[in-house]
């Protein structure tokens, strides 16, 4: 008696039910593949990946709220991914984030079998996963960020940048201050600074990136240093270089 290899535990993510139905049908021909979850949107996908730790993700690109690349950003490329989409223009970006394969809809069983074989090879070779920076880089080709995605355990927050008062660097994390709330994102402040619109967010200090729209006034303290007073009254230090950058914008 031969022992079957460990089943490939797969999560299917597509906002169209028919597309999920098709994948279910095509995957049924692979006894070594087990669908452990089906998700209709990116939020469910992030939650399912966090909770169930799949071996492979079959991921649609165009989905409401969180698209496929948002999902990758949030799960941090911990999982090999096969993209499934009708759009060919994301292929380059998909391989930048080290996608295993890129299936163009409509696709059939043969093409899917190829992709699965490739995924198995990738998993058994234990290829190193792409660095975070690479994912950010793929992202950087887009226009300035309009929203920031934050994952708290399996919950995802989509925060429009206009709602953010400022960013504060905290070791390996960046804290997003939104009114009374604070969200932590695993990213460096410098990376974020580059992704944001430079005319709206200014690095006023090594540790602070300020939403200029929140600035009420600049106060000069007794010593040479300056302090940014925000509309809600909170105060942030301004470094000398930060003041120069701020002056340039204002």
């Amino acid at each position: 008696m031969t022992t079957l290899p460990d089943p490939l535990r797969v999560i299917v993510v597509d906002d169209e039910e028919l597309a999920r139905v098709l994948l279910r049908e095509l995957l049924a021909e692979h006894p070594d593949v087990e669908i452990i979850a089906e998700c209709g949107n990116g939020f469910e996908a992030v939650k399912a990946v966090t909770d169930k730790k799949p071996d492979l993700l079959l991921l649609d690109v165009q989905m409401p709220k969180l698209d496929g690349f948002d999902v990758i950003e949030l799960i941090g490329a911990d999982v090999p991914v096969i993209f499934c989409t009708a759009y060919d223009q994301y292929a380059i970006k998909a391989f930048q984030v080290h996608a295993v394969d890129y299936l163009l809809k409509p696709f059939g069983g043969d093409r899917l079998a190829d992709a699965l074989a490739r995924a198995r090879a990738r998993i058994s070779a234990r290829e190193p996963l792409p660095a975070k920076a690479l994912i950010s880089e793929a992202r950087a080709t887009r226009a300035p960020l309009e929203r920031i995605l934050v994952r708290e355990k399996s919950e995802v927050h989509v925060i429009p940048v206009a709602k953010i008062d400022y960013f504060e660097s905290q070791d390996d994390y960046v804290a997003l201050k939104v009114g009374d709330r604070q969200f932590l994102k695993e990213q460096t402040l410098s990376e974020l600074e580059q992704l944001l619109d430079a005319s709206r967010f200014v690095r006023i200090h090594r540790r602070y990136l300020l939403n200029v729209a929140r600035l009420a006034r600049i106060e000069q303290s007794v010593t040479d240093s300056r302090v940014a007073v925000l509309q809600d009254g909170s105060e942030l230090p301004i470094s000398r270089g930060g003041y120069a950058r701020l002056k340039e914008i204002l």
Partner: protein
Amino acid sequence: MHPLLGNPRRLAIYLLAWLLVALLLTVGLRGQIDWVTAALFFIPVSLVFALITQSAWYVCRVFPIASSRWWVAGPAQIAAGAIAGVVWIVIAGGWSRALENMGADVDVRLTFLAQRPLLLVVGALLYWLVTVFFYLVTAFEASKDAERTNVELGLLAREAELKALRAQLDPHFIFNSLHSISALTATDPAAARRMCLLLADFLRETLRLGGNEQISLAEELALADRFLAIEQVRLGSRLTIAREADPQVVNCLVPPLLLQPLVENAVNHGVAQLVEGGTIRMVANRTGSTLTITLENPCDPDRARTRGVGLGLELLRKRLTNQYGASDAVYAQEQDGQFRVEVRIPAVPAPAKAAAAKAEASA
């Protein structure tokens, strides 16, 4: 930009023309003075005056011939001419005195004094001549500009038309539909067949109607219905449709595929971007001589806006501007997660004969 002062070549030609004027004046008004002295008198005075009359350009700019009232521009130009005439004889007077001081014939100054009234008139006339010249230059440049703009507009319109027609058929729509059909073949063959037929109908109608100058709103709405029916198969319960068309307006003529970019936007950038989906509302009615088609769909206010949103609308706007001349035919607004676009075009009912023939054909 001054047409002469900024252009040395033109300025040289202009001054050469004035040299001719100076020689004519020398011949005409020489009186008893000898040729050389007369020329010495008229040439410098004319050339200086030539430069002074360049100011007429600015007066012409203040009173453009097309948009000024004649009872304002007329007196202003007359006054400017009079002032120029005075300036002209003051310069001439000064120069005649200078020539006299330099030891020229005393007759120069006497002749000048005797002909002062005539010179005043000549100065004013010369100034007005320059004014007319500048008006002509302006008119010439305006017509050249208009011609260029026309050519550019024509090109733009044709390009927009082409792009619009090409954009009507989003290939991804077809790929997605085929993927849906592929999914249905195993689970629901009857639905797969229905979807095939819907897609075939839609493609055939798009190609057929796209070639026409104008089609009836009824045909356009039927096409949009087909498109939405296909998208409904793909998106399932997430997409619902509400449509109201005043029976009075469905025989109005519209450019073909007018609604296509709008319903496509409503699906791709609206309902498909919402986890819970939503309703696309389409209303067509008529107020007076205007046909108004309104499309409303829910949208995600925080959606990422980097996917060429607005391109379809922009092309439609250009197309309608080109066709109807009104630049406000397309009006789009987003408020509280609801996107609304209104298209207003002249309500032109299809000719009764053609409509009857069509009714007969379909009966």
